[in-house]
């Protein structure tokens, strides 16, 4: 009689469906997963330790590099924690700008997730569609901060600068002729807000396009319905947050239940799933994109009507204007002290969390009154989701592991930190 034995399969860290550097050790009984042991940490950069050796301001760009597909949301939690300890509130316009970019980031993240997830389980076209729209949001990032990804735009006390009056345009080059450039620049004639407004008008139709490709697609449903089911009780016990929790039917969204910035003044709905499987989480995220689009639109309308400062004028926290700095000795000293020694945050501890596209992203900050954090603990959204992979994957086939990795929406920048 042939000997029956279990196989151990090494999945990643170089597998394209591993979404970065996940090494997953699978114990298999035939094709069925007996145990999944994720080995993480291949991207560990000790961000928390590095932050202990940098001033508060110098750590803002590190936050972009945590979850590198939803950059500004990471910054948001970090600046909120600092603001909580400092006891300052950013100007209302800065709060609207932050909310607008948080929601654009949510679309950015969900597009990346949708494209990659669909690609993993066999739908090629969605990826191309999703990246077309991502490009527009990247342009918004670039227009406002100068960087397509690692923006470093949110600062303690507000945002770095106001929205630009003119949207950058394409120029004729050996690769783009005049006709092409004219077409590309059609919706870039006005300000950044005009461009964003135009995007919010176009975007719902794009989401319909993705849905035509997937929602009723037989193959898509075969791959996702009933896969990776989590009950609401289990989801809470495992510490799942964000769409992972809402997919299981728990109505919990920090934007609604513990609102920060101006979320309590905006009109949006919170989609929840029913069965807690991959398909429901897909539907939740699709609807979140539509709701995010609604929020962006409300912010655009408000921002167009209400000019004002975008950062506090406390120069121990925020730099003075360039003109003031060059004309006034006092401001020069402030500028110099802020960018060399940095700000001093009062002794104490604070935890600030935001509804990150992936779940709850929190920053726990301990300050002993120095110009650097004493301890910075990042609560990454994907960490508990990754830890739950073992439970989600048990009893499923190998091919379903790919669907489950896709549905938990992981990025190793924030799991490994």
């Amino acid at each position, binding site marked *: 009689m042939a000997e029956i034995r279990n196989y151990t399969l090494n999945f990643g860290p170089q597998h394209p469906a591993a979404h970065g550097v996940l090494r997953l050790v699978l114990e298999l009984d035939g094709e069925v997963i007996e145990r999944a042991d994720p080995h993480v940490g291949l991207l560990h950069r000790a961000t928390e330790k*590095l932050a202990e050796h940098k001033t508060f301001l110098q750590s803002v760009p590190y936050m972009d590099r945590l979850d590198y597909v939803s950059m500004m949301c990471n910054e948001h939690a970090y600046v909120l924690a600092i603001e909580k300890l400092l006891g300052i509130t950013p100007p209302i316009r800065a709060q609207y700008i932050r909310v607008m970019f948080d929601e654009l980031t949510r679309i950015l993240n969900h597009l990346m997730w949708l494209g990659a997830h669909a690609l993993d389980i066999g739908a090629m076209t969605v990826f191309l569609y999703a990246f077309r729209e991502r490009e527009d949001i990247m342009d918004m990032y670039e227009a406002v901060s100068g960087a397509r990804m690692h923006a470093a735009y949110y600062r303690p006390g507000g945002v770095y600068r106001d929205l630009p009056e003119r949207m950058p345009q394409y120029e004729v080059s050996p690769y783009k002729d005049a006709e092409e450039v004219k077409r590309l620049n059609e919706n870039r004639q006005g300000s950044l807000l005009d461009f964003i407004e135009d995007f919010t008008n176009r975007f719902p139709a794009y989401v319909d396009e993705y849905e035509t490709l997937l929602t009723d697609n037989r193959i898509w449903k075969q791959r996702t319905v009933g896969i990776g089911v989590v009950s609401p009780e289990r989801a809470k016990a495992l510490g799942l947050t964000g769409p992972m929790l809402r997919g299981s039917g728990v109505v919990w969204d920090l934007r609604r239940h513990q609102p920060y910035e101006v979320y309590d003044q905006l009109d949006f709905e919170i989609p929840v799933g029913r069965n807690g499987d991959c398909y429901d989480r897909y539907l939740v995220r699709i609807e979140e994109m539509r709701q995010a689009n609604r929020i962006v639109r409300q912010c655009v309308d408000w921002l167009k009507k209400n000019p004002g400062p975008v950062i506090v004028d406390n120069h121990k926290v925020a730099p003075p204007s360039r003109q003031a700095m060059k004309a006034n000795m006092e401001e020069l000293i402030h500028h110099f002290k802020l960018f060399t020694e940095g700000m001093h945050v009062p002794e104490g501890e604070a935890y600030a969390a935001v509804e990150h596209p992936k779940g709850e992203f929190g920053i*726990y900050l301990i300050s002993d009154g120095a*110009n650097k954090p004493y301890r910075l603990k990042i609560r990454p959204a994907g960490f508990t989701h990754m*830890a739950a992979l073992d439970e989600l994957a048990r009893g499923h086939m190998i091919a379903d592991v790919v669907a489950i990795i896709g549905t938990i929406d992981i990025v190793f920048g924030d799991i*490994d*930190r």
Partner: protein
Amino acid sequence: MPLTAEALAARLQDTLGDKIAQSRVALGEVTIEVAACDWLEVAQRLRDEPGLAFDMLIDLAGVDYSAYKDGAWQGRRFAVVLHLLSVSKNHRLRVRTFCPDDDFPLLPSLVEVWPAANWFEREAFDLYGIVFEGHPDLRRLLTDYGFIGHPFRKDFPLSGHVEMRYDPELRRVIYQPVTIEPREVTPRIVREDTYGDAGRG
């Protein structure tokens, strides 16, 4: 309506009584400190008492207090800080405990109470060397296979102890002592509260 921080602190005091070594409300957040021997019991009750119902463990962090205020710290060195959330009651809590032994920090594991603690405890073990008794699988999580030391302790240098490079003669990757000099661009300074205020020089 969610409870205010003060009301939550009062309810905790009523429910847990003398299990709370210290309770503090600051910046709208409630922090309680408990003794290490009560750690597991308090966690259990925080989850199960109907008035508290902390059904989610949001975060578990190790902290090394040895360099706090440049060495002015008098208490125990290692602490573990929990951040709890009650989805049903919509409130949050921070719980801290100090490990009784600085040389061998040991605490009971909370995996039985909140399964989410599993990886967080592995992380705290990896980075701070805090051992969680009763954890089913206490392996390193974030550092490399075969890593020596606990890198987030304050006495562990930022640039580490060893570096890795490819050796063309041995034709394999080798570890060697670090060759880069540690440097500090911005020194760490603790100032008095009124520093730089107008009229105070």
